[in-house]
């Protein structure tokens, strides 16, 4: 029992929790006028937590990672890298929000606070090494997300998105919880390492049911096929800054959680879950590619794109190797940059009265009216498609490389073939922007912050991003090594 060390290990969440409580008081007394102040303070708190996470990632004295709170919470390089990604996405989603909500005066100080609460939950998720922490973190993130989805409560689509997300999310939580209780019943412990030890001599039928239910519940949270149905509707209906948030931070957190559960808790029983992960990965890649073709709405298109990308990331998990985990982290970093960038581009698509434009057909001729934005969006689309000179290709390359090294050659071959289907609809967006008659609907940008973020992310996914691999490779390798600490 060393509470000083434990508090230090959990310091990112503790800092965020205390600041969220203070900010809640400021919001309660300041009312709507305090939105700006609360947003700025939230971003400051997130930067503080970011600095703490960087310390854990880079400081050699934390290289081994350590458990806190009787083995319920673990801070290691894997957790700190995931937290950095989560915090950066949350910062991006708070910065772009005020301009979006300004139209109609809908910005309220609760938006950054709810994002902050969701971020605390995600911090718990990526540090969870106990089924209880897993569930509490997941619920904290989900509850805040349900509210954020229906944040524009006077808008029918937003309310519908929130309700849909809530009902299906509650169902998924129930499935997950049922699996957790089965696992606890058949292993007698809630800690991941304890479960791994209890599985040492094979998995009983009851525990197998538990594994399947837990993986199904987690597949819902990362919106992998066949648990993806909510994604397009929720992404389309939720306010665009919230959609940006949903597509980045919770995906990272839930994916990191899935990795921890699969590799730490079910680590010795790879044969049991590998076929499930392979099926889910392939189904997500293929369905995410095929179903996106008919989409007219760019937010729905990006929703299917995120399903598609989750499938590619899961290929890394199917390998069950350290190289696979390292490839997943690399892919997640690039995925966050691409998704954040493309959704901020969507946020910048407004007509002359400031109404958001979401139909792909209205992007016609964007290269003439807004050449910079069109170029950035084209970079993101090419990168999401995995076309070589761009950084998105690198993510796919390392994942397939790990799959081939692990002997999953058919899986890699089908994945590569299916990525060609995906390339079709990404290229369609580029075609509409560059080769169609200008529709001249999109107004010039009115936000420097958005343009700065778009430029930043576009530079990262451009071929310049390959310079970053020099710094990223050791970091992702260290994170993957931390994940296999119990093996």
């Amino acid at each position: 029992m060393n509470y000083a060390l434990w508090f230090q290990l959990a310091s990112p969440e503790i800092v965020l929790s205390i600041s969220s409580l203070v900010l809640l008081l400021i919001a309660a007394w300041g009312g709507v006028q305090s939105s700006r102040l609360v947003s700025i303070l939230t971003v400051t708190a997130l930067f503080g937590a970011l600095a703490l996470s960087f310390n854990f990632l880079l400081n050699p004295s934390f290289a081994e990672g350590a458990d806190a709170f009787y083995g319920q919470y673990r801070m290691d390089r894997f957790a700190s890298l995931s937290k950095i990604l989560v915090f950066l996405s949350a910062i991006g989603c708070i910065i772009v929000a005020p301009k979006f909500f300004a139209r109609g005066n809908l910005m309220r100080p609760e938006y950054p606070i709810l994002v902050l609460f969701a971020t605390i939950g995600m911090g718990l998720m990526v540090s969870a090494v106990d089924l209880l922490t897993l569930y509490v973190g997941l619920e904290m993130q989900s509850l805040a997300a349900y509210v954020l989805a229906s944040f524009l409560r006077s808008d029918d689509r937003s309310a519908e998105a929130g309700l849909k997300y809530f009902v299906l999310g509650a169902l998924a939580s129930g499935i997950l919880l049922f699996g957790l209780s089965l696992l606890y019943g058949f292993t007698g412990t809630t800690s991941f390492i304890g479960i791994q030890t209890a599985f040492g001599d094979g998995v009983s039928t009851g525990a197998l049911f538990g594994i399947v239910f837990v993986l199904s519940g987690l597949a819902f949270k990362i919106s992998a096929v066949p648990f993806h149905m909510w994604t397009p509707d929720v992404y389309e209906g939720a306010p665009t800054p919230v959609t940006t948030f949903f597509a980045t931070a919770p995906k990272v957190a839930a994916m990191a959680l899935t990795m921890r559960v699969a590799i730490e808790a079910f680590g010795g029983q790879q044969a049991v879950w590998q076929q499930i992960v392979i099926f889910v990965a392939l189904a997500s890649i293929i369905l995410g590619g095929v179903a996106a073709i008919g989409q007219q709405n760019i937010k729905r298109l990006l929703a299917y794109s995120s399903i598609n990308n989750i499938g590619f990331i899961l290929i890394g998990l199917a390998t069950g190797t350290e190289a696979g985990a390292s490839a997943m982290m690399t892919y997640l970093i690039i995925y966050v940059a691409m998704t954040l960038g493309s959704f901020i581009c969507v946020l910048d698509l407004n007509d002359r009265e400031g109404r958001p434009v979401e139909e792909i057909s209205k992007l016609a001729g964007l290269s003439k009216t807004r050449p910079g934005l069109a170029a950035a969006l084209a970079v993101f689309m090419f990168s999401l498609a995995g076309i070589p000179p761009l950084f998105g290709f690198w993510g796919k390359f390392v994942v397939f490389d790990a799959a081939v090294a692990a002997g999953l050659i058919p899986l890699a071959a089908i994945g590569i073939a299916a990525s060609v289907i995906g390339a079709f609809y990404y290229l369609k967006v580029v075609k509409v922007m560059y080769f169609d008659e200008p529709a001249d609907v999109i107004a010039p940008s009115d936000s420097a912050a958005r343009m700065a973020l778009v430029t930043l992310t576009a530079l990262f996914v451009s071929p310049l991003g390959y310079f970053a691999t020099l710094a990223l490779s050791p970091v992702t390798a260290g994170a993957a090594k931390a994940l296999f600490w119990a093996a």
Partner: protein
Amino acid sequence: MIQIFAFYLFASVVIASGAFTILARNPVHSVLWLILAFFNAAGLMVLIGAEFIAMLLVIVYVGAVAVLFLFVVMMLDIDFAELRGGFMKNLPLGLALAAVFLAELIFGIGAYQAGNIALGENALNPARMGASNIQAVGELLYTRYIFLFESAGVVLLVAMVGAIVLTHRKRAGVRPQNIGSQVRRRPEEATRNTQPAVGQGVQL
């Protein structure tokens, strides 16, 4: 001896009040029978030494859930006579479902007693066998699981913030009672003395 007497008393009242819950004509009576069933189930829990669960039953189920039911039943205008009309129609289906559940129960208990289900050994090893349940739960909750206990508190806070964000709004056109202005008001502001002359009427 007294335990056996208490067991049969509680058990028969649970079953009887359960039956009355579904048989009562008035839905409010149904909820009241349900509350009686909860109280007696709590008594059964005390008999097997699970006093913590007994308290939870009374506090959570009687205190919160049943009262909520009562409010819902009284607020919603449900035509219970019409609902009950479907009873005879759906009776075969209901009986079939009941038979399936009964079979599952018998199979489950049978398999468990035959030793076919090997549950895991509890790794935590309840060290304090002598302590009462409440003491043991409290000690674990505030020491070993304090981190999760506090996190669960944050989850509840999020739920509260969410409920307020989604439903609270400023209503226009309502005139709420302003106690401050009522108390501040002096007789001089509200009344005046006049002396109307006879036969000339009054000016209001």
